[in-house]
């Protein structure tokens, strides 16, 4: 019975990771051997006691519906509260879908007005971590904030190429602003695009935005109005992995091969829930050789795997070698195939003896259903 309503906004622009999001929203991009990106945000919310969550969606509903179903895996199949997916409205007399997520918000205004909690937590689905939102809410209430921006403090940020272009929070003349990281600062507060707001403030911003009709995106609407409200930041102390590009996706994936990091990510403030797939345990044959890798259930491993992540129901044939790669579910790596620095999507067939070499700086993405024989 948390006093916080979760709102996960999937209506933001997502085209910077296009290879993996052709047929799925960023939210359902597979991650960490058996999860989808959204599992982390959803589970963090559930583990923080949030029992009512709204999901703003704009398109590509099918993959999301498939993954979430009635919401049982997150215990969100509830009579009251639980998970509510907010679709854009399509009136028969209006055949235009407007740009941005604001139109979706507009067509669900009655839902937002009916929220019973006093505060909302607005997030996206592409910041991976194991976060307890309770202390942030406590601070938000204690400080009497209208808006609390959740941040990560970054030191020696000038060398972090991967954080270029991301949102940073700055305080000038007593008021906060959010802008782009252009790499000029060494120490800064990264916005993780999570905001705790009074419900009344959220509703007011939404109403103003719709009435004024200037902004198309919720995030911009909030940023534009920061100076109107009592704003503060709350620094999240645990590690967060942003997923904004293929490069970030690849690096984040390999980060979880560190057992200590995995211990944090999968257990810190509660488990990460995902759709049950009911695959049996993974069978290793006598000739297999696996090192420093995360392997999901349902696989048969006959070859060599190194510094890689293997999703469910993958078959790695005798003599095959998979290094520094990520292989999604239901893929077949035939005998003597050799992969290095690859991201292999679902239902791919790699024929015997095939050699595919990407680069650590630009992993080779093999798209869903491809057959390389």
């Amino acid at each position, binding site marked *: 019975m948390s006093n916080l309503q979760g709102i996960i906004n999937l209506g933001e622009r997502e085209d910077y990771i296009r290879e993996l999001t052709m047929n799925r929203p960023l939210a359902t991009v597979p991650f960490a051997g058996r999860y989808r990106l959204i599992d982390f945000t959803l589970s963090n919310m559930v583990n923080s006691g949030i029992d009512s969550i709204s999901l703003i969606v704009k398109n590509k509903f099918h993959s999301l519906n498939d993954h979430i179903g009635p919401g049982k895996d997150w215990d969100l199949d509830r009579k009251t509260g639980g998970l509510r997916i907010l679709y854009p409205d399509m009136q028969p007399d209006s055949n235009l879908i407007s740009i941005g997520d604001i139109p979706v918000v507009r067509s669900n205004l009655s839902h937002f007005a009916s929220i019973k909690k006093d505060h909302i937590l607005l997030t996206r689905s592409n910041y991976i971590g194991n976060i307890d939102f309770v202390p942030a809410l406590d601070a938000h209430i204690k400080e009497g904030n209208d808006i609390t921006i959740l941040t990560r403090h970054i030191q020696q940020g000038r060398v972090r190429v991967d954080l270029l272009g991301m949102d940073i929070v700055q305080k000038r003349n007593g008021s906060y602003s959010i802008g782009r990281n252009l790499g000029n600062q060494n120490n800064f507060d990264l916005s993780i695009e999570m905001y705790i707001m009074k419900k009344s403030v959220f509703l007011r911003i939404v109403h103003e935005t719709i009435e004024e009709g200037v902004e198309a995106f919720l995030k911009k609407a909030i940023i534009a109005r920061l100076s109107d409200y009592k704003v503060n930041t709350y620094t999240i102390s645990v590690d967060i992995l942003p997923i904004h590009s293929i490069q970030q996706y690849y690096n984040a994936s390999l980060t979880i091969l560190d057992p200590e990091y995995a211990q944090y990510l999968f257990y810190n403030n509660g488990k990460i829930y995902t759709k049950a797939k009911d695959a*049996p*345990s993974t069978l290793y044959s006598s000739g297999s050789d696996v090192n420093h890798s995360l*392997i999901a*259930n349902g696989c048969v491993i006959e070859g060599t795997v190194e510094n890689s992540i293997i999703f469910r129901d993958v078959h790695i044939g005798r003599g095959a070698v998979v290094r520094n790669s990520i292989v999604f579910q239901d893929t077949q790596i035939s005998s003597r195939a050799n992969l290095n620095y690859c991201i292999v999507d679902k239902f791919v067939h790699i024929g015997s003896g095939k050699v595919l070499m990407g680069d650590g700086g630009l992993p080779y993405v093999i798209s869903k259903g491809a057959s390389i024989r």
Partner: protein
Amino acid sequence: MIYSKVVAMILAGGQGSRLKNLTKKTAKPAVHFGGKYRIIDFTLSNCANSGIYSVGILTQYQPLALNTHIGTGVPWDLDRRSGGVEILPPYMSTEGGRWYAGTANAIYENIDFIDLHDPEYVLILSGDHIYKMDYRKMISFHHETKADVTVSVIEVPWEEASRFGILNTKDDNVIYEFDEKPAEPKNNLASMGIYVFNWKLLRRYLREDHKNKDSSHDFGADIIPTILSDGHRMMAYRFSGYWKDVGTVESYWEAHMDLLDPNNELRLYDEEWKIYTKNLDVPPHYISYDGNVENSLLNEGCEVYGLVKNSILSTSSVVEEGAVVEDSILLPYATVGKGAVLKKSIVLSRHKVAEGEVLGSEDEITLVGAYDMGIL
């Protein structure tokens, strides 16, 4: 639509004391199996995959792990508005409380429950066998042969037949005699303890059996022989495939070793007949730089820093640096400490083998750990 007229009753009340510490604090059907499952998952998944959605589970002995495991029945899609899975423990009536006195008595005490569903057929199942079976085929067989009772049988080697309840049949699979552990078997068709009954007939025999003070209230010993001697039509349904009663520590260990054969008959990887179990929400398993795994089965959540050979590692078990695990089974959350060496051992759940400890031998199976609460 005949499957909607079936209620399955799973006998899950027994301790299975020959499994020793594995069942000291939990009922046998809740014992872990195959890295990921509990024994009852096989029977429950068979029900779900056969489209039988009204299932009663008869419990009596230490049911907490079983109850927690089954929950509302979500993993088997048995969380239904009507029907679904229901746990049926003993209860008190105005005449006082009665524990279940035998397999038939357990069903007798739940006649009201079965009547609620008003079924045509009742399928009696045991919750402690490892097998995959499409009960629809058996029920269709029962229906088509106009049987009153159908008993599922499996061919066993002739030399072992005297260890089983043997059903003697005519050419057309009509059973004319039941031999419990015959010294000189006339047949090698062993009863699997799986029965289809016409409910009206069974209800009548259960009531009569309840009044009979000489009865042990057991299906095999009392109900089946009585129905047979009364001349009802009893058919033998021949099952072929993997079927194992994991009633002893030895057979439990053997059944695990069977899983290491990639061509084993149980075919766990078959997408068309999945075995469902409670999802424990742990990440994929991790094998470290120095970890080494050979001819083994690993489940989610495991971490391997040592050597694992011909073994089964259940959910979130850990093999630390320098440890060697051979021909062994680690149950969930078991840990093998640094440099420890295990041979032909079963480590109970949550037990930690101390650093450097050396356990087990080629000659017999060693159970490691005090007892298994079995709750995860």
